[in-house]
């Protein structure tokens, strides 16, 4: 395996997880419905990816009530942001290397 590929975090191998992290990196917090809408996923599919990212310690979940409706907000954690930044850098260096060769 090429060295730059090692730098790509396993958790981001999935396009969906990368998408979730992108949205959380750009916003203070994002609710379940917005994630579902922008990533075009079913509830179950999204929930399982969110669970995995939570287990990784990359995101933080906040459950509240808006009136009587439950509302779940997700935030990126410090670890999540640094892993995401790291992943972006790795992607960029892959592109640079590709241009050089």
């Amino acid at each position, binding site marked *: 395996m090429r060295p730059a*590929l090692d730098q*790509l975090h396993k958790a981001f*191998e999935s*396009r969906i997880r*990368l*998408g979730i992290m*992108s*949205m959380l*990196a*750009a*916003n*203070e*917090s*994002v*609710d379940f*419905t*917005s994630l579902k*809408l*922008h*990533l075009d996923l079913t509830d179950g599919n999204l929930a399982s990816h969110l669970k995995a990212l939570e287990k990784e310690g990359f995101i933080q979940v906040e459950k509240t009530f808006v009136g009587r409706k439950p509302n779940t907000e997700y935030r990126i954690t410090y670890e999540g942001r640094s892993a995401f930044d790291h992943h*972006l850098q790795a*992607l*960029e260096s*892959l*592109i640079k290397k*590709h241009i050089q060769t």
Partner: protein
Amino acid sequence: MKTHTDPVRDLAEIRSLMERSSTFRALSGWQGVLAGAFASVGAGFAAWGLEFAPQAWAYALPAEAVRALGLTALAVLVPAAVTALAFSRRKAAELGEPAWNPTTRRLLAGMAVPMASGGLLCVLGAVNGLLGLIPALMLLFYASALFHAARFTIPAVRTLAYVQTAFGWAAALFPEYGLLCWALGFGAGHLVYGITFLMREAR
């Protein structure tokens, strides 16, 4: 397992998601056109109907005239706000987004504070005989609200905020032209913003 092989596409996708999810896009040029039209009519009525013609910040009118001015301001503000919300809702539906999403919430919550402060200060100014300062207060506080909104939406809003700031300061420094500045900022400013928006969309 398949590994990433297309970092260019990944980065493009990340960028687009970051942008789309953090930008309020449910805007229409008609919001500007209508707000500009309401404001122009309101300013015309204040100038010719109510003979609002301050020469300095300190400018008092009989209580009845102050009330009429207040009602004129509301008659501009309420229809402009209602039509703006209606067009945003329609645009959100076109984009397939819920009208009341976290971006909308952040946008409106942030705008509400400078708008409420400005509105209260205008009422206090009117009560204390400072009618000549009110056009400047309205323009400057509205501009603050727009600067906040610009963080969450299209860049044209920031330009509009600078325009309102410029007319706001002109109104503050030259209160005898306060109403004219108000008409140029709220009326012409919004009309130009709305028309350019519509023209760009048509292309």
